[in-house]
């Protein structure tokens, strides 16, 4: 049964985490395969020839690429429980907008926070905090981005939380001081089994970030 769904992933990837969470939300049995990105498997190269990137979701032998697309696919195929996207078209559009925002803005900005120095890092830190504040403002006083229920935008963002201690350490920032509501939201998400099971230890992620810093020559 597990062979039906295979996830090619890399353990610290905040994008891979999205797909892991979505699969667990739906109770889908899957085989998790961790890729060595310096030595990509033939299967990865065959299943994502265009980008050669993880995560790749393979369902009955057919690949789905791009984490946001995978989460929507999972929601549509396993539609029997725990809906991830809202059913109302306008709410759905808002959810898609915010995951698109995260996709467009978060990755570049967060990279600068821990993997750059000097002027570039300072600019990166400002941008990053601004992005988090925009997200926090969108969250408002709701328990989750979609309202009362855990959903698409929560899944889209929560993976970055495991990288927060690293941003704080290497970027010399305090995310809790800047965005307390967002931290409260993250802790709330971590209570969810699908999230707790899908996210790695923050400490391990921070170690990984330290290794990347050396690789990028900023350490």
């Amino acid at each position, binding site marked *: 049964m597990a062979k039906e769904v295979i996830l090619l992933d890399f353990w610290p990837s905040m994008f891979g985490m999205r797909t892991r969470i979505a699969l667990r939300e739906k109770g889908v049995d899957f085989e998790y395969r961790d890729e060595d990105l310096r030595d990509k498997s033939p299967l990865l190269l065959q299943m994502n020839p*265009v980008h050669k990137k993880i995560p790749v979701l393979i*369902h009955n032998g*057919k690949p*789905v*690429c*791009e984490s946001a*697309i*995978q989460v*929507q*696919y999972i929601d*549509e*195929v396993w539609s029997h429980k725990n809906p991830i996207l809202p059913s109302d*078209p*306008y709410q*759905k*559009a*808002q959810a*898609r*907008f915010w995951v*698109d*925002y995260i996709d467009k803005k978060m990755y570049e900005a967060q990279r600068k926070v821990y993997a750059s120095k000097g002027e570039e890092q300072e600019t990166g830190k400002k941008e990053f905090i601004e992005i988090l504040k*925009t997200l926090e403002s969108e969250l408002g006083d709701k328990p989750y981005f979609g309202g009362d229920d855990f959903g698409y935008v929560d899944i889209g963002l929560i993976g970055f939380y495991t990288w927060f201690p690293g941003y704080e350490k290497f970027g010399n920032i305090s995310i809790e001081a800047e965005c307390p509501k967002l931290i409260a939201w993250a802790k709330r998400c971590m209570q969810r089994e699908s999230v707790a099971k899908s996210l790695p230890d923050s400490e391990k992620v921070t170690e990984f970030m330290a290794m990347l810093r050396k690789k990028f020559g900023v350490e």
Partner: protein
Amino acid sequence: MAERSEEVKLLGMWASPFSRRVEIALTLKGLPYEFSEQDIANKSPLLLQSNPVHKMIPVLLHNGKPISESLVILEYIDDTWQHNQILPQDPYDKAIARFWARFVDEQIYVTAMKVVGKVGEERDAAVEATRDLLKLMEKELVGKDFLGGESLGFVDIVATLVAFWLMRTEEVVGVKVVPVEMFPEIHRWVKNLLDVDVIKKCIPPEGEHLNYIRARMDSLKLKSV
């Protein structure tokens, strides 16, 4: 179709591929809409209020409620008015369509912009890179009339960016980025698109469009010498 009065307004820009693709979708669905041409250099209060995050067109206002980002808008249109479906119904086919739409916007568009925005060696490199990406699109078209299959679909609408923006820029830039010998399928697909009334109606008129591109390039002084 809904009987209540539907107010659909599009904040757009006549020469923008992202704005035009929304017009294609609305027209395919036979939806009446009000088009409001936006001045990007001097953004209107309505635009800033409707898309405070990105401050960009297109923005669709449906009964006053704003939706931003063209791909999000296209899916919203398909979700709200379910006749003449733009996206495939099957979840797998839908995932593939979404993948290719992103590919056009995040890969082809970004690389093609460098063809227009750079000169000399950097431009040559951008042309090479764009062609490599287009080869993937070329492969997708083999044996198909449209990227969506037998008829126009989501990816075709998004990829009008290639057919009527990238390929039109060739004339102005003086570089054949998409030569017919290298990309016979893409050229065949463009002809198929031009046979579709909605497309003919919704793309910017060629003469005016070329003048516009020329004027922008002149102001950037980036035409090939």
